């Protein structure tokens, strides 16, 4: 049964959700705009006897995550774009050693120090492997505070289920905003045996090793293939998205997180003008909902796609691959920490509808 709705900040809800998911280890380094995750943890972890360490750097924090995960614990770190860049080394090692961990990225505008306002410029580094080597992160993009809660709990389950890193990709808007959240009385916590964990042998006949190094090419290639098989399984089972109005949509918006929120308003405004607009909102950015996009592109009622992002056009590449030339795919993006206005998006919809140049 759902409990009473309380008004909370997105960042705090992430922290609360992690605690509810049984996470008792948090390692982080301060950076705007995710700081409330850390503040919440600094207080709560001490109160409940968990671990909170303010590390000397992002690099160190992600390696503490690696250590705690290797010891079999549920573990969280949070950061924002420049900090995530620093964590990429550790993220690659976590992928290589197949460790379960949850990393939150409350994205801000880049490149470089950039700014601290909301952006989605980290889509590439989140979904395409920001670190070295062939690997994937499971990437979740919540669009509301309630979803931040539910998907953060789920992130820990997925991490343990597949022994991999799950990244929650938010942005400054989602992290800083308050919305009502209804917590469940009983969390759905999946428990998995971790016979591989380094906890001390405690009578085991063989020692456990957590590593990502395989010097022999054949051994490493076999390991690579194992990873790729796992990723293929995830792509077949774990894709999540929300579809709105695809039955009769002429124009389909693709947008995740904050952009999907703005686009919802646009869909309503377009309907008032007699333009049927639908939306596919990827909830998992990897695995990417290619199939539904491809199927939608094949529908005769669909004339075009409009991808809306807070970047120069990153997810749009995956949308184009999925559409595979069946319909035109247009793009509207804002950068620097600015958000597109509803009017900007609506104007573009009108132009596409009229068949004009976009």
């Amino acid at each position, binding site marked *: 049964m759902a409990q009473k709705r309380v008004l909370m900040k997105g960042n705090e809800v992430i922290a609360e959700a992690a605690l509810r998911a049984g996470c*008792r*280890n948090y*390692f982080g380094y301060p950076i705007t705009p995710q700081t409330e995750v850390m503040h919440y943890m600094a207080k709560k972890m001490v109160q409940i006897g968990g*671990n909170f*360490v303010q*590390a*000397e*750097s992002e*690099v*160190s*924090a992600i*390696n*503490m*995550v*690696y*250590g*705690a*995960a*290797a*010891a*079999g*614990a549920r*573990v969280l770190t949070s950061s924002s774009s420049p900090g995530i860049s620093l964590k990429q*080394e*550790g993220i690659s*090692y976590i992928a290589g*050693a197949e460790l379960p961990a949850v990393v939150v990225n409350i994205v801000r505008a880049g490149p470089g120090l950039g700014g601290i306002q909301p952006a989605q410029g980290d889509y590439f580094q989140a979904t395409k492997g920001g670190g070295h080597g062939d690997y994937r992160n499971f990437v979740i993009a919540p669009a509301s505070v309630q979803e931040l809660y539910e998907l953060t709990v789920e992130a820990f389950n997925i991490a343990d289920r597949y022994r991999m890193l799950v990244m929650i990709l938010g942005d400054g808007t989602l992290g800083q905003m308050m919305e009502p959240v209804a917590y469940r009385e009983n969390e759905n916590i999946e428990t998995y045996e971790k016979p591989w964990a*380094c*906890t*001390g*042998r*405690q*009578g085991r006949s063989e*020692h*456990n*090793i*957590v*590593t*990502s*190094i395989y*010097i022999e090419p054949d051994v490493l290639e076999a390991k690579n293939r194992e990873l790729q098989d796992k990723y293929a399984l995830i792509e077949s089972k774990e894709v999540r998205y929300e579809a709105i109005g695809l039955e009769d949509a002429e124009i389909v918006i693709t947008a995740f997180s904050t952009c999907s929120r703005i686009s919802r308003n646009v869909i309503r405004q377009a309907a008032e003008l007699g333009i049927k607009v639908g939306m596919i909102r990827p909830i998992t950015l990897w695995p990417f909902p290619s199939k539904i996009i491809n199927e939608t592109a094949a529908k005769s009622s669909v004339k075009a796609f409009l991808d809306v992002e807070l970047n120069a056009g990153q997810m749009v590449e995956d949308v184009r691959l999925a559409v595979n030339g069946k319909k035109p795919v247009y793009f509207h993006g804002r950068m620097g920490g600015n958000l597109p206005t509803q009017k900007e998006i609506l104007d573009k919809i009108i132009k596409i509808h009229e068949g004009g140049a976009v």
Partner: protein
Amino acid sequence: MAIVFERTTGLTDKPFHYCPGCTHGIIHRIIAETMVEMGILDSTVGVASVGCTYNSYEYFSCDMVQAAHGRAPAVATGIKRSLKDKLVFTYQGDGDLASIGTAEIIHAAARGEKICTFFVNNAVYGMTSGQMAPTTLLGQVTTTSPFGRDASYQGYPINVSELIAQLTGAVYVERVSLTDYKNVMKAKAAVKKAFEVQMSGKGFAFVEFLSTCPTNWGKEPCESLEWLKEKMIPQYPLGCFKGADLDLEVKS
């Protein structure tokens, strides 16, 4: 028949890959023996680092986690914080600990992490073929200081133990060598003490081993031991820098 010598169960059967005359093997052995003798092999997690000892995880028979270059103290922090009743050690070389991992080791010590770090200083990068390390001596020829380390150009060697000893969180810091039986026994006593410090919950324990690298020093094994005594010890004096008189009553 009485057994006078046997392999320690603290090591696996995997043959070492270390070069002849390198003292990593001795250091491995005394750490492994100490774990067995103290009865902690089953409750210890080791952290291997990057360098010649990258696959020390295959030799130590306790649970082992392989860390990224320089990050072992952070990885050990994550392990120890979630396994408070277990023992955790890192095994790191001079490039790993004193160069790329400087921040991690200083802050683990400053936080007083209840872990042991075994630091192997052979004044050179071994694995990547003999480059200058932060601990390379002045005048020492390496592949990246081919005319000898020049202070005006490449700066000065870092005395890590002395540096760590400045930090309040580090409660036991000692530098040892392995040049003869007596020193090997002293080194082993230091390893034991480091684990005891961790068990006491007092703070961070650090043992620096002066070690040889005949291959990259371009010397015969015995000659290397002599070079260590003549050249390294004047720069890196042996002894206990902190915690010589610690009261190590183990916390119940």
